[in-house]
């Protein structure tokens, strides 16, 4: 392992920002609910990259960055399970998972 980080933290943060923006485009524009969920996973990963980068570049003495990243991964797993169960139920009822066609509550 290298003794010190060889590149500035900005490189990681730029990757993280771009990944978050890609996920945001997916959440805004995709019609399929599962595709929206995939985009949310991308955004959660962008946040994780940030947490780990700041953990490493602040010296690595405090472990909070990694603890937060593990919490995010836990929540992402729970969220994926619940969201996919809901999507399955919605599909049984409406025969579609396109979010712009599920407008039962529209006045």
């Amino acid at each position, binding site marked *: 392992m290298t003794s010190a980080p060889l590149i500035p933290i900005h490189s990681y943060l730029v990757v993280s920002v771009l990944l978050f923006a890609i996920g945001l485009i997916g959440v805004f524009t*995709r*019609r399929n609910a599962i595709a929206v969920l*995939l985009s949310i996973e991308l955004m959660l990963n962008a946040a994780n990259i940030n947490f780990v980068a700041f953990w490493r570049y602040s010296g690595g*003495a405090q472990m909070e960055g990694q603890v937060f990243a593990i919490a995010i991964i836990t929540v992402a797993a729970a969220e994926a399970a619940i969201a*996919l*169960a809901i999507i399955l139920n919605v599909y049984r009822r409406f025969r579609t998972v396109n979010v712009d066609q599920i407008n039962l509550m529209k006045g």
Partner: protein
Amino acid sequence: MTAAVTHQLQSGAFWYLFAFACLAAGVLIPGLLVVLSRNLLHSALWLLPCLVSVAGLFLLLGAELLAAVQILVYCGGIVVLILFAVMLTHGLGHADIRVVNQQLLWGVIGAAALAGVVLHLLSRQMWPIGSATAPADVTGRLAEALLSPYVLAFEVASVVLLVAMVGAIVIARAEPE
């Protein structure tokens, strides 16, 4: 510092930078394909190289346990779950006529504006380039952090996972006709 040591350092820096560039491309290009792919099954499969590259970035940053957890939970669990959901709802991934809604233009503009603002702020912000040496015994200290100051969050997370599992079973269960 002798010339040999300098050369060795530069060589190390080159390989570090090379690995970072490969992993960054491996995160962003599959990420873009996840969002843009017309076939939902391809979207879900493109998520795999993206998540593996994120795990590679974690390794590059020295978080070995987190990289392993990323591979196990995301690639082994979440992607498989999503593939099941795709096949249960969508058939075997035939392409939709229209995969994006009417907000395509505004969605792209909004996301690009956010990325532009954050990148602009980043370019003005200077953090010190890590002066710290590589942290030793990361996994052991992570275990201590999880089980002494954050033990409540740790236990709550296990309860959350249990409730999510039971809830997912109850929600997804076929209704008795």
